[in-house]
């Protein structure tokens, strides 16, 4: 034993002693546990913020469960095997965005929802994550270098989705869709001369864009600058959500004890504004804990992404990591009132099956980039 090659030892020993079915199944235990922690916490907050509706929690649990199964399934696929599907899923997303403009669900003033009988969803929720993945897949469909026209095509693809969302009309989401499309393009190495050209074009057309905005979109932007503009509109929403978070203080008012949320003072408290319920009931302490877990998730995404083998995997992971972080930041910033109100749910927590499932699918893609550890 003593004259054995140290390298043999180090290679062989883990093989025998550290086979762990969980590590095999989940690939990255820290990431999966952090995800589950956030999801379970989310279900608990959903119960509190939905007026203690058990039904809503059950529905959400089904999506969470289905999403986790799909995530694990995808995580065991080889990225090359679904790269083409991802690339072409762009067209599905585009079709949904066109479809929703002509066939919106009834009962809304805007054309954002598709009603397929037993549930409703917003295609923009799907396109936010489909778009970056399909763009990465397109840019890295071949081993060869990316051509100049590929940058243009992908930029146009992102602009197209963004415009369709803008037509719903939903200014905030259209900006977010565009951002989530441009991040992978930039990370994949969009040349700076192309960027310069884009900026030049933007400078020329931006006055036309502003004049084409609807009053309601201008209103949303203006609310940000003065929350007294419409005390019962968005400004009122923000004031109520700030009151909720502020009155939570350091320790919070306790689970199910938040007066702002339990008495319905917070609008959309179970969906976009669920963060204010967390702040009210668990205080600064609860917010900090949530951010730490979110931080762990993002750390694992980049850890996996930066050590992935192929450029597709690397760019996809990093893009998704940034988009995930961006969604959190946008949602929280909106709820605490430092940016205007936009329709972005708090990832993995807000009510909404589509959002949860699509996010978990994206995490499946991330996990699949991690080499199986045997």
């Amino acid at each position, binding site marked *: 034993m003593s004259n054995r090659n140290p390298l043999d030892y180090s290679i062989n020993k883990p093989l025998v002693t550290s086979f762990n079915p969980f590590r095999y199944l989940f690939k990255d235990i820290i990431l999966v546990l952090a995800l589950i922690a956030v999801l379970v916490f989310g279900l608990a907050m959903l119960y509190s913020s939905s007026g203690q509706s058990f039904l809503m929690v059950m529905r959400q649990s089904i999506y969470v469960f289905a999403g986790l199964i799909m995530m694990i399934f995808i995580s065991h696929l080889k990225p090359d095997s679904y790269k083409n599907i991802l690339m072409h899923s762009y067209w599905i997303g585009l079709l949904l965005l066109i479809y929703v403009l002509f066939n919106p669900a009834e009962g809304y003033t805007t054309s954002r929802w598709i009603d397929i009988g037993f549930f409703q969803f917003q295609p923009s929720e799907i396109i936010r994550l489909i778009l970056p993945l399909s763009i990465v897949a397109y840019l890295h469909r071949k081993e060869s270098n990316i051509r100049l026209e590929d940058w243009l095509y992908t930029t146009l693809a992102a602009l197209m989705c963004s415009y369709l969302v803008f037509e719903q009309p939903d200014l905030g989401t259209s900006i977010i869709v565009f951002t989530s499309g441009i*991040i992978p393009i*930039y*990370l994949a*190495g969009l040349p700076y001369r192309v960027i310069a050209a884009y900026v030049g074009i933007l400078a020329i057309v931006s006055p036309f864009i502003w004049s084409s905005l609807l009053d309601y979109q201008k209103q949303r932007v203006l609310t940000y600058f003065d929350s007294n503009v419409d005390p019962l509109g968005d400004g009122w929403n923000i004031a*109520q959500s*700030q*009151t*909720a*978070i*502020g*009155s*939570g*203080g*350091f320790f919070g008012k306790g689970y199910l004890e938040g*007066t*702002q949320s339990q*008495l*319905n*003072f917070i609008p959309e408290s179970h969906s976009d504004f669920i963060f204010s319920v967390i*702040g009210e009931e668990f*205080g*600064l302490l609860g*917010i900090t804990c949530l951010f730490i877990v979110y931080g762990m998730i993002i750390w694992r995404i*980049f850890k996996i992404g*930066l*050590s*992935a*083998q192929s*450029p597709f995997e*690397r*760019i996809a992971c*990093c893009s998704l990591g*940034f988009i995930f*972080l*961006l969604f959190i*930041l*946008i949602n*929280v*910033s909106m709820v*605490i*009132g*430092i940016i205007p109100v936009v329709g972005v749910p708090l990832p993995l927590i807000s009510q909404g099956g589509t959002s949860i499932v699509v996010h978990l699918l994206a995490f499946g893609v991330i996990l699949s980039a991690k*080499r199986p550890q045997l």
Partner: protein
Amino acid sequence: MRAIQDLRRDEKDAQLLRSRSGVIFFFLLILIVLGVFKILQLTVLDRVNYEAESDKNRIINIPIYPARGLITLEDGTLIAENIVTKDLYIKTKLYENSIDQVEQLHDKVLDENRKIDQLQVPIQDEEKIWLARNLSEQELAKYEVQKNSIPNVQLEAKLRRYLPHKNLFSHVIGHLGLINMDERLSLSRAEYPDDSFIGKVGLEKSYEKTLRGKAGISLMEVDVYGNKIREINRVSPDKPFNLTLTLDLRLQKIAQEELANRRGAVVALEPATGFIKALVSSPDYNPNILNGSESGSLVSQSSLEDSPFFNRAISGLYPPASTIKPFIGLLGLEEELITESTIIEDKGFFQLKEEGRKYRGWKEDGHGRVDLKKAIVESSDVYFYELASKLTIDRISSFLLRFGFGEISGIDLINESKSILPTRNWKLGNIGEAWFVGDTINIGIGQGYISSTPLQLAVSLSAIANKGKIFRPKLIRNNQLDAYEPELLMEVQIENPRHWNIIEKSMISVIDSWNGTAHNLYEEGGITIAGKTGTAQIKSLTDQDLTVREEYEGIRKDIKNRDHALFASYGPVPDPNLVVVVIVENGESGSAVAAPIAKRLIEQYQININES
């Protein structure tokens, strides 16, 4: 280890990815830093403000008003209670846009007769316009059918003051009304919101605090729609006290019935305590209409011009007329200007000097030889003209003052008038002239400048009934907490107590003797009543130097110029338990009109006492 080796193989790619990730992260970092600062500001720096804000959001104070205190008689009869009434209102903001709904309300819900007397001027406070108060059951049923088509008209149930006996106690209990600007100044909105009712007159006003109690507060948690979720805390209201009156229902009823809507007043009180047993002023009104607990007419049509809201029993000033004679007679005895047997010759008039002005008595031919008893029994004016002229005004007014003339009695009602007891200075100050002996002579028969309220006259007379003691007149027997004890107001001390008896005997003879002015009350074996009639002249025959016949033919054709009939009495002698003063305006004859009312009251009161 292998991942790092892979990266090294593709170092250029990795380098690019890292640097570009850094750029994106830098931008996101701005948002992160801003967010962290904002969250710290919310949860740490401004926490206290937001806590207050959050409480302000969810907690509202709802005042709890206790039901107004009940008023009962000693036997438990309810005099003032609270009933639930249903009213319709519209928010002031909505009124202009809802004219059609209001019209529909008139057409389809409300009774026909309501349109005329109540709806022309809707009663308005700041937030609501009241369209109809106190809906009948029929109206309520119609409203239930129509309410979806008139959504801006809303129903409110309220506790309102209700007097089961309606008009009977109107001048004692009084009524409530919407709080007005003057009352607003001294009362908080928490205790009295803008649509609250407050006592305006009578006991409702003088015992407002006792009857209202103090509002409590309920701290309610509400949700964003204003729905009440739960009560967080409650400060219970201070319950008001119930009042028990000294009044006697049957006496009150008899007095009202006998006055029969004529203008007049009756005051009956217990001399030994000052407790008032009947206090009626006629005509009266129905306080329930003003309290909003009943619809109908406030006053009877016939009494509209007769000031039905004026409480004649405590505010009406009348010349005491001949009812003052016993007091003057008593003073004469005390001053030893006369004795029981002093006799004067009554030829029908009195002159200070030969050829001077003739002060005529009511009997043209005079009463002949008159002593004190006969002077009171037959009500000789001439006797008292002469006595008064000898007594002088100074002695008369200082003596009458001791009986409460010229004072308010201090009953627990507002608006009591101060009766007038003239002196030399009073005339100089109020009329601007010096006092003449002629003025004194008029005072001798209770005319001229002197005036009394029926209540004050009853209080003063109770001194004779009590042989000196005068108790403060009281309407409240107890307030649930304390019993109101009799309160000795003053005691008239006289030199010779036998003089009380001389006066009392004379007053008894007013009824008992065949020649008494109120002999019509006499009945064999009946109870002994001491009394004195009075006929208060409005157009004084003393001033105009006319004979009685001339008077009747001229001036008195007009009812309003006729004399007021008075009767002041107490009984049964020797242990009187009721002093009764009756005044019937323009009733002409104290003996025929006023005296029988007093007799019925005294008799009824004996029955009541024997029963209990």
